[in-house]
């Protein structure tokens, strides 16, 4: 009698554990699916809604597990945590130049990307200055960057000042704080930027 009970208990426990594992696996796969289809950073709230749970703590636990799963595996993809507990699935940067040609959404061409880099690097910077340095075409670039939500303008007196948006920071996984972001950017732009800074002290 007792033995049977123990067996039942043990079987129950196993069952339960198997169920738990299965449930956890299901949650991980759901989060993966969500990050894959969205192609943008998702907040814990959005991720929780996919898991159909109100516990952001639980969602966070799962998404961290998924992150670990991705980073421990040999894969071209990565999951990053951004500011304000938002998460994004993306291609590791090292692969970008090698597969860019297969992308069908027209990426920004190198002109606008240079203007973007300049604005990010010198922000806050007047529109006038950007046009002076990048040329007349930069009007179009600025418009495009604003349309894409990567850059925002502020009117200060008679002139327009440009800076990057939080969306920009998220897109590149940078800090939302301008000073910190500029430091991070300098690291990304690397040696070229460093030399430049030494030659030309900030005004």
């Amino acid at each position, binding site marked *: 009698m007792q033995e049977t009970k123990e067996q039942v208990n043990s079987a129950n426990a196993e069952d339960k554990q198997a169920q738990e594992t299965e449930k956890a696996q299901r949650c991980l796969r759901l989060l993966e699916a969500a990050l894959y289809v969205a192609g943008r950073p998702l907040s814990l709230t959005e991720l929780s809604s996919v898991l159909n749970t109100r516990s952001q703590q639980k969602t966070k636990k799962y998404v961290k597990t998924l992150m670990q799963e991705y980073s421990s595996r040999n894969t071209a993809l990565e999951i990053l945590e951004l500011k304000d507990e938002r998460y994004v699935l993306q291609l590791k940067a090292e692969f970008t130049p090698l597969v860019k040609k297969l992308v069908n959404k027209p990426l920004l061409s190198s002109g606008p990307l240079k203007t973007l880099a300049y604005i990010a690097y010198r922000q806050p910077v007047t529109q006038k200055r950007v046009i002076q340095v990048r040329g007349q075409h930069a009007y179009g670039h600025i418009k495009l960057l604003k349309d894409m939500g990567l850059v925002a303008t502020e009117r200060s007196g008679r002139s327009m000042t440009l800076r990057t948006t939080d969306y920009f920071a998220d*897109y590149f996984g940078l800090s939302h704080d301008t000073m910190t972001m500029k430091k991070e950017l300098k690291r990304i732009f690397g040696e070229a930027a460093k030399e430049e800074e030494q030659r030309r002290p900030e005004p």
Partner: protein
Amino acid sequence: MSAEIKKPFYLRPPWNILFEISKLEKLTPWNVNIAYLLTSFLLEMERTGKVDFRASGVALDSSALIYLMKSKLLLTLQEPPAPPKTPQDFVPPPLFLPLRHEFTSTTIQHLLEVLDDVLKGEKLPSLDKIVAQPVLPAVSDLMPQIDIFLMEIEMQMEKLYALLCEKVKGTGIIEFSSLIKGVTRIEAIRTFILLLFLAQEGKISLWQDEATEEIYIAMGKLNLAGNERTSE
């Protein structure tokens, strides 16, 4: 129809240059990048979805006028100024956006919904879309001091035509490259502009070989119906 009196986008810089005659008359033509202005004008109009044929007309007219001003300076042998020096500043390398795969929400249902619209438009000429907008200056205001310039051009054209008659001899055709052999760049441009005027009057015909980019000049109008000449 639309009650909004909001200032249209093209009265803002940089496009306003094309719509303010006073400015147009004062400016140095070399400072105007017409290709950029027109491309961005069209893109902006496309984005806002408000197609305004009158504005397009004025923009085109102003651009033509600026080209004419540039041609005029070239014909009087004024060298275009050297491109302005951009201020020295470090421009970091382009920032490439991280690649992410994104699903899009457009389904075949959407495609079919808009198809319905388009096929309706295929049958109905869409002339009723044009709405008069009183914000633009009349086109004729833009064209005063041109007459003397045109007279000057007439003279130059006559000279060039005489030269061509002499050069083509029996064949009736001459290559542009041989016509401008040994002349300065500015003189070559000037010659080319005059050729365009001559072609427009039907005195000569021009065509370009797409492969070699050579431009051929033939005397008189080209008879395209027979296709004999184009096969050369």
